[in-house]
């Protein structure tokens, strides 16, 4: 039973924390891996997220679902990791990693069928804006619907649609180096 608002339990229930970790750590790892694009960094981020969860578990009041609460902590932590990483690693070589993606793939559909293209696509998610990456990961990898994503991201359902729409367009640009004709260009 959740404690009433304003009277958090001082000591988190260890068994409760373990259950929460078992349930949510794989999902948070998935999000971290897609947002950061690196297994070691993702593992480190998951630990940071669950340190916070462990510290704050006693203050969880059940205003939102446990999943929403943990995802919000995760998103804040992951955005902070990405900021730190961009300060540390923003280099020409890193930028070249994206710019050197082949753009000679004329038959985009055929290219996407290849496994390596899927891997490139997955890596490109980490190049999206944090909000686009979160929306794309929650929708495609975790199977959340618009309403859940909107709740987790503390935004409107309409904004989730826009994030997914823009995220797909940005992924296409990152993957092929090409920009589809905008309506204005037609």
């Amino acid at each position, binding site marked *: 039973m959740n404690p009433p608002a304003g009277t958090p339990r001082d000591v988190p229930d*260890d068994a409760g924390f373990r259950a929460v970790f078992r349930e949510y*750590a794989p999902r948070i790892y998935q999000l971290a891996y*897609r947002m950061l694009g690196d297994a070691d960094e993702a593992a480190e981020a998951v630990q940071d997220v669950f340190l916070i969860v462990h510290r704050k578990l006693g203050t969880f009041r059940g205003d939102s679902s446990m999943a929403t609460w943990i995802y919000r902590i995760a998103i804040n932590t992951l955005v902070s990791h990405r900021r730190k990483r961009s300060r540390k690693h923003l280099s020409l070589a890193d930028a070249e990693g994206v710019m050197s993606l082949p753009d000679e793939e004329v038959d*985009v559909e055929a290219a996407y069928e290849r496994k390596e293209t899927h891997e490139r*696509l997955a890596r490109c998610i980490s190049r999206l804006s944090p909000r686009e990456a979160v929306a794309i990961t929650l929708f495609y990898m975790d199977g959340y619907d618009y309403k859940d994503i909107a709740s987790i991201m503390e935004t409107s359902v309409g904004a989730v649609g826009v994030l997914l729409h823009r995220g*797909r367009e940005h*992924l296409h640009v990152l*993957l092929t180096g090409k920009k589809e004709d905008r309506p204005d260009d*037609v």
Partner: protein
Amino acid sequence: MTCEEYRAAFNAWLDGRKSEALAEDARRHAATCAACAGYAAAIGSIDAGLRQIPAAEMPGSLLAFPDTIVPGARAPRAPGRLAAAARFLAPALVPPLAVWAAGLFLPPAWGGALSFLLATTGLVMFGVASLRPKFSNS
């Protein structure tokens, strides 16, 4: 239907938010607008690719993470080899050493009493060591 409207409708359709009213308009628009037809092929492929990305599996080493932060949950450490040997040998070595030390430095009466005390201590230690639960990972 404008290109902008078509693209918004197409993305909504990809997300399972179909609008039958818009569908016919969208089909008509795509049939006459090469740019939007190309857009639909490209973004549709991105959507298909995203649906096929396999889940990233969490490393097994992370499963032990709660053990490192939950107070009192840390697994007991196995004693080192030296500590285990000392624990085993101490009860056997203490009585003869005690007798030897007592004979060197103390009058016989005191030496005898101290030897008895230390030998008893050694036996008690041996008993305690035998009764202690063995380390287990479970």
